[in-house]
């Protein structure tokens, strides 16, 4: 059992092109802020927020990565231990959408095969400048078997939902894993040691 005061611990890594609003999403969620004129992230930033999901204390460790190419080898090293990836693009920037397949290749190459990936189209407050239609993004995410959500870090639209839904899915995934693991011995390359034991009884 963990000594710390939480039932679950998950690592979430945000990835995507530079300037799509990853840092703003994280800031909005963890601090309730929207800092205008946010500078480019250097390397990776690290935030923690503990949320309550149906009475369970869930500690979310959020790694906000730099989108710029020169930090790629740093950010890639975080993929493997991630329980979830939030792949972000900017709905007002066609280029950031067109880069998604490249990001998916990175995920394929570096992340664990059990990772949950969410596609996020950010900046819906700039609707008049939209370049990527919701339908297109939905079709794409469906083809890639990803959960899709459109957000606005500025207006705080869907930001809370994004992280809380993700936490819920991570919990149910973790419980399933425990059920499997209880039968067989622990699999190699398994994520963090989390105290699942208390949780199985509830399901």
């Amino acid at each position: 059992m963990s000594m710390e005061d939480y039932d679950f611990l998950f690592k979430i890594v945000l990835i995507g092109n530079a300037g799509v609003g990853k840092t703003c999403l994280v800031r909005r969620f963890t601090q309730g802020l929207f800092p205008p004129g946010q500078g480019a992230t250097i390397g990776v930033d690290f935030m923690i927020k503990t949320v309550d999901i149906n009475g369970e204390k869930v500690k979310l460790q959020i790694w906000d990565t730099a989108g710029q190419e020169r930090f790629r080898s740093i950010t890639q090293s975080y993929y493997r231990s991630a329980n979830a990836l939030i792949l972000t693009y900017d709905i007002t920037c066609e280029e950031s959408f067109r880069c998604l397949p490249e990001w998916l290749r990175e995920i394929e190459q570096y992340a664990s095969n059990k990772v949950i990936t969410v596609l996020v189209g950010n900046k819906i407050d700039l609707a008049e400048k939209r370049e990527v239609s919701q339908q297109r993004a939905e079709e794409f995410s469906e083809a890639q078997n990803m959960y899709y959500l459109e957000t606005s870090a500025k207006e705080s639209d869907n930001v809370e939902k994004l992280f809380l839904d993700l936490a819920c899915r991570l919990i149910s995934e973790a419980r399933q894993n425990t059920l499997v693991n209880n039968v067989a011995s622990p699999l190699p390359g398994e994520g963090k040691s989390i105290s699942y034991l208390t949780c199985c009884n509830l399901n």
Partner: protein
Amino acid sequence: MAVAGSGLRGPPGGEGGGGSSLTMERIRSLTDLPELEAAYSRLCGEEKVVQEELEALLEQQNTIESKMVTLHRLGPNLQLIEGDARQLAGMITFTCNLAENVSSKVRQLDLAKNRLYQAIQRADDILDLKFCMDGVQTALKKEDYEQAAAHIHRYLSLDKSVIELSRQGKEGSIIDANLKLLQEAEQRLKTIVTEKFNAATKEGDLPQVERFFKIFPLLGLHEEGLSKFSEYLCKQVANKAEENLLLVMETDMSDRRAAVIFADTLTLLFEGIARIVETHQPIVETYYGPGKLYTLIKHLQVECDQQVEKVVDKFIQQRDYHRQFQHVQNSMVRSSAADKIEPRELDPILTEVTLMNARSELYLRFIKRRIISDFEVGDSMASEEIKQAHRKSLDKLLNNCLLSRTMQELIGYYITMEEYFMWETVNKAVAMDTCEKGQLISSMVDDVFYIVKKCIGRALSSSSIDCLCAMINHSTTLLESDFREVLCTKLKLGFPATTFQDIQRGVTSAVNIMHSSLQQGKLDTKGIESTDEAKQSFLVTLNNVEVCSENIMTLKKTLENDCAKLLSQGFGGEQAEAKIESCLADMAAVSNKFRDLLQEGLSELNSTAVKPQVKPWINLFLSVSHNIEEEEFNDYEANDPWVQQFIVNLEQQMAEFKAGLSPVIYDSLSSLLTSLIAIELEKVVLKSTFSRLGGLQFDKELRSLIAYLTTVTTWTIRDKFARLSQMATILNLERVTEILDYWGPNSGPLTWRLTPAEARQVLALRIDFRSEDIKRLRL
């Protein structure tokens, strides 16, 4: 009497609280004798009470009278005091009025004085103005620019209203003319100073440069002065840097510092700039005021960036950095050894890059500290917004300067190359794995951890927290998946058993080998050459796994200490500590994975090697009759039928493991073994039958066994054998009912591990106990 008594009480009725409870009307209305008597006796009682009260009051009369006398005596004194007080009040009022009068005069005086001062100030200002007009001209003629600038400075700092006021005076037209002259002089002086400054710059005449640099702020040209001065300083930086770069090109490859020559060149550049900042900061602070260092450094940083670019370009070109990176990337995809870049070749360049980055971080930290403390002095009275803005512009300068970006790029490539270096070198260590005879672990464990430590250590030496974390992550991945997989595969080969299990084992091993070969995609050429070697290999791997688990924890602790040192020097942002902690926690979790693997390996060893051998030895117990009489018992005494041989066998088997396993693992294995023996022995005992002496025999045998096992394990085994000991106790009873001396309320300190049903079952093993007696027992 009653009537008189009540009459004395004054007017009747509910008025006074002291009145009788009986009113006159009520008394008059009484007609009945008993009622009258009752009223009379009540009134008598009341009279008595009143009498007592009166007496008490009369007693107090004396004291009250003496008090009254004292009060009368106080009277005259009080009058005296009243008179004094009145007098005092009058005096205070008088004094107050007087003070009021005086102070109003003082206030008027003060006002007058202030106005006078202001008038003098104005007069002074006007005089100054005139003085400046004259002074500037003479100073300019004398080429005393400091003096001239001081006059201009005085003029510029004069209140503009003063100038307006003096123009309104009688001499308005003269002053107007003079003002014009003054303005002209100001312009002239500005041009002259700029020209002179430029000339001095060109000649590299530092005293002259500094002389005019000090004049600029007097003329209100702070920004211009700083930018011109920076220009001069930049030129110096550029010249020096160019010289240094030329020296690099001429450096002999055999030079002691040749391998880190570019890092050295950067160091020289940074040290040069730092020296300039150190030397000139006092002048800037004195003549330009605090808070201006940022502007100076901003200009210098532009030059620094240009010079860094040149050095790094040369570095990339000379060291073939990009091509090396490409080569590494290709090598990572391709698996054929021929095309792969030799990791050892990368070693020097990786060291140099980390050194370059470390120097840059050191320089940036220096600049940051200087600017922050300069801003702190300058912003001591400033608003929070201004402070915030300054902090933001500083962050922007540091994060967006070309130096930072260039280094981030170099480190980006570095991480990929370092990762490749680590994987390849680890692969080599695994391929070259050997185990010396008598060694518990094989060479690769120490080698792998040496490599991992070296790579993380190198990343740490770059002073970049993100770079360090990335390498910790990569190491975690390597240890957790690949290296653990190597050990896992070796364990999957299994521990071959000897003698009669050989055939059976051979089949499973073959299947195992095929299985793992398929998984790996290639055939393990080493395979099992001989049973002995395979055994050795399995045990060594178990030890390896345990040492890995420990090494990871040691590595984590070492890194924690090293990182604490780095952080205490002020490197890394506010989240640096949390980031490192999280990455190291992931690494520590891998240690547990190795522990799990060890447990898996041990239970595999126990179930495939130990159990198949121990079980038949225990089963031999069945072939030794425990339904014996005196004669056989004595015979057993002389020629032990089972337990001694069993112990000898166990000893032989465990000796093999004791020699080949680390003490900790051996201990775990012994523990597994004792549990196994306890369980299996229980099974065979329940299949046997016993006479009274047979029970005694079993007791003896069990005691010998426990005594032996206690010597081979470090922890107590009594608990594991509790059930068997209790069975021996039951088998040793004289009669069935004797168990009641030990059972239930008579059990004393003994805790029965056998259920009543089990106790009956054991009793039934005694052929001389009648089943009716056993059934009749109340347990």
